[in-house]
């Protein structure tokens, strides 16, 4: 945690607005072009990631001292929102990658192995994935069945993971497991396994309603490596201080991007209507005004919690995360945004009417709507609400 504050300063002379313009350019010319095919074939968005690697965006959150862009969480959120406007699956993969990068940046800079890894990540634009959930734990991130086995300098592990997003494509995978075969289920560490050091035997396929390009199949992961690849910070700290808030912030940001694109499509549709009857505001424009209000609320909600997290990181103090208040607010953000995205895309669909309902129209909202319904399910809202219910029994609003 000594290094939490590194990414809170914007590098002087770095023009973030220019970078954001580049992100939108990549979005328009690459992500949007392949989005329909990625969705239809449920395939990895390889063109998008070639372009993101070319723009060095895979090391956007890596501090400048390791050659990265040194963006902060506020800026990463903006990048995710921008990407979400062009291809939900690409944006989701990018967001999940950033979460893993943040784990290293926040919790492993004391380790020479991980300092080297950050340099490699920048140079090779390595794509990081995560294997947290496990068959037998019912989706509870805070318990593991599999355990790491250490002998000398070498570790071994085998994990049956029901979901590893882009596990077939990722260069490196962060795996949670028990600290040792004797450890209780909650005493977990996070271990990096790297391409060439692991085998991933498919357990299940990924043929879903939305986010089809994330290719989140299940795998039996078998890996070996050096003990230096075990993260120096216990997983519960990484989860509380980084993985949990960071995930919900980047997910909500990209969902906002998907919602914003739906509203943009609705706006184009309303404008085309208005052109037919100049001087008269079409009825659909009233709906546009309504949905725009919900989008603003969603975006501001995300930005507000993102700023709160940014401020907590600036304090550079693990104690800042003490108590349940911030966790509860983070969970509230996720649940609310996952509902707003469905509401907004649904409203946009009403505006575009049959043109939005068609798969073969330039106003099609089919992919947006299918992606939108996934938001409530990836870490199920019911699970999150139950956690909040437990925490709220003892948490009081500060006065």
């Amino acid at each position, binding site marked *: 945690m000594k290094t939490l504050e590194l990414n809170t300063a914007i590098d002087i002379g770095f023009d973030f607005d220019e970078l954001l313009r580049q992100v939108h350019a990549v979005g328009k010319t690459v992500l949007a072009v392949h989005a329909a095919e990625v969705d239809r074939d449920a395939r990895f968005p390889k063109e998008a990631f070639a372009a993101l690697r070319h723009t060095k965006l895979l090391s956007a959150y890596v501090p400048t001292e390791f050659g990265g862009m040194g963006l902060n969480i506020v800026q990463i959120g903006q990048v995710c929102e921008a990407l979400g406007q062009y291809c939900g699956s690409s944006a989701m993969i990018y967001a999940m990658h950033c979460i893993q990068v943040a784990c290293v940046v926040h919790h492993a800079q004391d380790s020479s192995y991980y300092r080297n890894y950050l340099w490699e990540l920048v140079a090779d634009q390595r794509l990081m994935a995560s294997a947290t959930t496990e068959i037998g734990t019912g989706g509870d991130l805070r318990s593991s069945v599999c355990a790491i086995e250490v002998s000398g300098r070498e570790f071994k592990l085998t994990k049956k993971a029901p979901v590893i997003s882009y596990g077939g494509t990722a260069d490196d995978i962060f795996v949670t497991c028990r600290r040792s075969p004797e450890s209780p289920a*909650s005493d977990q560490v996070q271990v990096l396994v790297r391409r060439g050091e692991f085998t991933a035997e498919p357990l299940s396929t990924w043929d879903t309603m939305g986010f089809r390009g994330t290719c989140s199949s299940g795998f039996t992961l078998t890996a070996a490596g050096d003990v230096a690849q075990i993260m120096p910070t216990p997983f519960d700290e990484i989860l509380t201080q980084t993985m949990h808030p960071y995930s919900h912030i980047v997910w909500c940001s990209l969902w906002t991007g998907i919602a914003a694109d739906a509203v943009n499509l609705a706006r184009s549709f309303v404008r085309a209507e208005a052109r037919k009857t100049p001087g008269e505001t079409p009825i659909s424009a009233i709906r546009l005004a309504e949905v725009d209000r919900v989008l603003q609320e969603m975006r501001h909600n995300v930005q507000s919690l993102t700023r709160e997290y940014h401020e907590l990181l600036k304090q550079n103090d693990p104690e800042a995360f003490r108590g349940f208040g911030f966790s509860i607010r983070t969970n509230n953000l996720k649940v609310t945004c996952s509902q707003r995205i469905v509401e907004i895309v649904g409203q946009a669909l009403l505006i575009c009417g049959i043109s939005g309902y068609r798969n073969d129209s330039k106003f099609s909202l089919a992919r947006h709507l299918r992606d939108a319904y996934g938001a409530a399910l990836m870490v199920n809202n019911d699970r999150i609400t139950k956690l909040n219910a437990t925490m709220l029994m*003892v948490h009081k609003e500060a006065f």
Partner: protein
Amino acid sequence: MSDIETKLLNDVQAIREIVAQQGRLSVDVFELDTTSDLYSAGLTSLATVGIMLALEDRFNIEFPESMLSRKTFNSIASISGAVSQLAT
């Protein structure tokens, strides 16, 4: 044994029973030393909620938000310290 010592022993026993019921530990809490690390015995921050509510009920106290920390629930001894602090 003085009255105070007897009360302290009884309190520690009550705390152990509460941790045994609510802590979801992977080991028998009655086998642990009062200073043993409960987190490495499987305690999670979420399980501390149940422990805290049971302690509040048993000792007729109320934990402030500031004491909802790893430090408070780290061991039987630290819980016992927190309870006596709040009970006075």
